[in-house]
């Protein structure tokens, strides 16, 4: 479970995130919608303990992001969009194992888990190859495996399909669905309406750092008397963000 209470982040005079509160239940996918610079990534970075909130608090899997930062990091898996962030000179197996080691897994445990993940993602044929030699789709699969090597309860996805081709996007979406089926608590940050509609149980819309609306898709549609999520989004956001 993820519980966020009045969390804010300021960079000097710029308010990147402004008093966001929300709760994501176990086995739920919560979609964060917002334009570029709306505060989605900053929110996820705070939840992943990479950034310290200016005010407010949050708990992930029962651990406080400030007091129990290490335990929080041990409970989450995070996948960033765009670049996969793999080490090109390490093999896929070494890339995945490195994150297992840093999450305090023992070697036999890592080996066993890599076997399972390799089978699940169809990576057997290139597991020993260096990551720098792989296609973008292959790299994306290795990045998936790496993010869940320690089998975390909570997954954070930050625009995971950004810059990917259609088949790779399909792969990412399948992966997110599988995570949900495994009972993981998920926050998916995106600016793709169709993706959010397809995957999320509930949606929150962030504009200029504030959570301006949230609820299930049905609730949003009913409240705004509109069937089109994109229209609702445009109505709430009202154009470009400018900080």
């Amino acid at each position, binding site marked *: 479970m993820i519980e966020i209470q009045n969390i804010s982040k300021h960079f000097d005079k710029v308010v990147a995130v402004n008093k966001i509160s929300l709760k994501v239940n176990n086995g739920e996918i919560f979609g964060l919608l917002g334009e570029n610079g709306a505060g989605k990534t900053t929110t996820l970075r705070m939840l992943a303990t*990479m950034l310290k909130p200016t005010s407010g608090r949050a708990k992930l899997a029962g651990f406080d992001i400030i007091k129990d930062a290490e335990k929080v*990091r041990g409970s989450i898996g995070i996948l960033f969009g765009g670049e996969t962030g793999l080490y090109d000179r390490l093999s896929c197996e070494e890339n995945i194992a490195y994150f297992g080691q840093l999450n305090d897994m023992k070697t036999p445990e890592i080996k066993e888990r890599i076997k399972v993940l390799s089978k699940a993602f169809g990576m057997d044929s290139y597991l020993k190859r260096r990551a720098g030699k792989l296609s973008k789709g292959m790299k994306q699969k290795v990045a998936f495996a790496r993010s869940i090597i320690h089998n975390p309860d909570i997954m954070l996805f930050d625009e995971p399909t950004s810059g990917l081709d259609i088949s790779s996007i399909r792969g990412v979406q399948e992966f997110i669905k599988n995570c949900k089926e495994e009972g993981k608590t998920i926050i998916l940050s995106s600016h793709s309406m169709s993706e959010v509609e397809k995957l999320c149980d509930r949606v929150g819309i962030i504009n200029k750092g504030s959570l301006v609306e949230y609820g299930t898709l049905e609730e949003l549609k009913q409240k705004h008397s509109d069937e089109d999520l994109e229209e609702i989004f445009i109505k709430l956001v009202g154009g470009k963000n400018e900080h």
Partner: protein
Amino acid sequence: MNIKHIWIVLKKEAKDIIRDRKTIITSIVVPMLLIPLLNILVGGSISRLNYDMTENVTVALSKESNTEEIRELVENQIFNEFSNITLLDVDDHIEAIEKSTVRVVMDFDKDYKVKLEEGKPFVISLMYDRSQTKSQGSLHIVWDAIESFNKKIVAQRIEALGLNLNLLQPVQVEEYNVADDEKTSGSMLSMFLPLLIVILLSAGGIAPAVDLVAGEKERNTLEPLLTTKIGRSSLLVGKYLTVTLFSLITVIATMTGVLVGFFINPGSLTMGADATITGFTVPPAALLMAIVISITLGMTFAGIQIALSTYAKSFKEAQTYLSFLMMAAMIPGYATMFMQANEIPQYMFVLPVLNALSAFKEILTFNINNTNLVLALCSSLVYVIIALYLAASMFKKERILFRT
């Protein structure tokens, strides 16, 4: 801080760097091979040049002086003890010098014979080409031969007057070097070895430091890493130790190259000075001290390099900062190059970089002052702590770590 995590990061970073051919070639292979290779090439050409200048001296007489009589005088009385000089017969002596057929041309006074018989001085003009190293070098050999001929004539004239030759030389000079071979060798080593070590320690960490932080930021590999259980301190120390390790490996690789170069060409360590390094042994305790000070200097550079690499927005920016750091480190190295160990003021043993340079000089010249060495070591440790603190404060600042 978690030692297990630090070890995991160190192992991974070392593996990653070892697989990077560019870094391995520039940090290890090139320094290891460059110096022996230079010694073979430069040493070989210097030997050939020396041989040509001193052992294969070609001389000709000017057109006016090229008579049977002068040739006989030159061959039998001036060059008779100099088998390395060959007298050639040329048509155009100026052209012969220009084309390097001969190195020196001798031109005798027209009335040299009369003057020689009357005991009056006569002139032998030596023509050479200053733009040619070999011609310039051979001039001294011909000069020596004429000096030797001069002494012979003087001796004959003094003897003819029934006088003792010692009358002309009331004082004879004999010189004694109070420094033994070790001190002489150490003094020469102390000129360039400390500078070389400082340059290598500051340069060796550039590639890994840039790659491990600025490179990771640019390749987006740092962010996923920060979401694992590893704490930032452990991550920083793992990276810091990797940079230190590769700085030291660069020093070891280069010093191995220097030693191999020394065996190939023993004169190479004196950088062209007219001496070779012989009988040089450093006391074990002093050697240990030099190693420890080198390591602490490497650790200081590594800390600053990690801090600058963290501060940099990009790979290129980090490379620029670290190149400046290397240049800054070279300044005290050059400034103290010709400073004598026994004249180094004590305050220099506590100043950054200068402390290590001064300590190396003392150790290499056997002017060991324990207080100075302890001061150098303690101040080095303080600088390591300051550098690490600087790196840690940069690494922990969100705005710096995530700025791109």
